[in-house]
């Protein structure tokens, strides 16, 4: 047999190296922050230790509640945006006719900064969480749509011919061919989208709400409580990291073939 060596980043050694690289990167970031705080020497930029102490003090009572609200909104937006964009992207990717009809609309709307629609969304949807989630959904929707459409379009025809030849119906091809084929691109779009989603959510949370990391950071800033403000900023960063790592793990599990030589 002339099998190739297993590819990918799998294996205990690879995972250990990755974890070590992440620890080193975190150390570099914290070191740079600490040095910058020494150079600036201003209460506006407290050092990492002071912020860590403050996070421990207010974490369980205050930060977790705000982070939970933000996480709930982002998670809801990820689910709604995926549920809406995935089927549409698949249809556009596999049907030239529908793509010709809808692609120009997506092309024109994609570059519009969705955050600019926030006032309209507040007026139409109300000032509750639904409005904040809607704005994040609008951002994620187009990123997922474009990624899924392009992935569905580039599925090799050999997959579909061979699937039909072994008796697969069009409905079965959705489960056995189309969805698995676009999964890597979908998860990449979600991982890239979470960064933008958190940025948009931060802004949307500065209006008409008492909970969420966005409102906590701005409110701390207004109180001139810089350690609190930095604790909020670090928390929103950690929230982004958590989502990124969670999606990375999902990708590692469901797209096993990209990382391991056996299931």
């Amino acid at each position, binding site marked *: *047999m*002339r*099998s*190739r*060596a*297993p*590819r990918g980043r799998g294996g205990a050694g690879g995972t250990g190296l990755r974890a070590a690289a992440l620890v080193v990167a975190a150390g570099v970031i914290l070191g740079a922050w600490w040095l910058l705080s020494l150079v600036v020497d201003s209460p506006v930029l407290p050092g990492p230790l002071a912020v860590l102490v403050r996070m421990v003090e207010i974490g369980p009572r205050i930060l977790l509640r705000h982070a939970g609200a933000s996480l709930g909104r982002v998670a809801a937006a990820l689910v709604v945006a995926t549920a809406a964009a995935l089927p549409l992207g698949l249809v556009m990717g596999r049907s030239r006719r529908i793509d010709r009809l809808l692609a120009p609309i997506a092309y024109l709307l994609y570059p519009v900064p969705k955050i600019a629609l926030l006032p309209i969304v507040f007026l139409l949807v109300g000032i509750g969480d639904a409005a904040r989630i809607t704005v994040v959904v609008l951002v994620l929707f187009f990123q997922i749509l474009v990624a899924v459409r392009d992935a569905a379009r580039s599925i*090799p025809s*050999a*997959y579909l*011919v*061979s*699937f*039909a*030849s*072994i*008796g*697969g*119906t069009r409905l*079965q091809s959705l489960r*056995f*061919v189309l969805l*698995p*084929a676009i*999964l890597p691109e979908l998860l990449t779009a979600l991982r890239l989208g979470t960064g933008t989603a958190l940025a948009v959510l931060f802004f949307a949370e500065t209006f008409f709400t008492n909970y969420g990391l966005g409102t906590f950071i701005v409110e701390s800033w207004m109180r001139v409580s810089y350690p609190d403000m930095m604790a909020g900023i670090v928390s929103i960063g950690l929230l982004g990291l958590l989502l990124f790592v969670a999606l990375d793990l999902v990708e590692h599990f469901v*797209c*096993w*073939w*990209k990382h*391991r*030589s*056996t*299931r």
Partner: protein
Amino acid sequence: MLRFTACTVAYPDPRSGPVTPVFADLSLTVAPGETLAVVGASGCGKTTLLYSAAGLLEPGGGTVTLDERRVAGGDRRVGLVLQQYGLFPWFTVRENVALGLRLHGASPERSGKAADSALEAVGMAELARRSILTLSGGEQQRVALARTWAMQPDLLLMDEPFSALDALTREDLQNLVHTLLRERPVAAILVTHSMEEAVLLGTRIAIMHGSPAQLTETPNPVSSAAPSQLRTRDDFFHTVAALRRRFEELGRA
């Protein structure tokens, strides 16, 4: 017995309506135990012939039957092996081989057992749990053959199955296909660009030419020999040369 009866296949142009048919009024039979090797230039209609036999293309006129029953798309009696393998990387080797049976309603145990014995037959049993992406081209084509073979088809269709492989791997797979077809002598059509391959594996050889395409059969006096013995024999080279001359004559005509 595969039977094409006065078959016509044309790809309609959505703007200008029907175009010249790929083939018209084509009649053809392939009996169990026969391998019809079809050679022809690129774009002459070989793949269209194969897809029609697989039921993936509906003829505009005439019928395609296997043992007197019409062939429909996804017909379990028909196995199709493609040049690009058509294996799914998100399934293991074993899952790929079992997939066809699962789609036809077999239980996981039954489809798994059938997959194991088909993998055994193509010499891939030890790689059953592997990802498709870790396999070489030759190994992937063995898995594709196993997937087809696991369904115990009555008709085996091969669309330039070895043209993406290096010479040595191609010879291995030609030997394997010959062995499989000797053990289970079903009707088979092999579409190929290679004259040598047509002589090695075809019990009958047909040249596809013209527009609409016609099939002109040419004798293969060495068809009874195994490819592993045939490759070094003088009569093999003579037969290939004769086939090439006939191919060129028909091309000029």
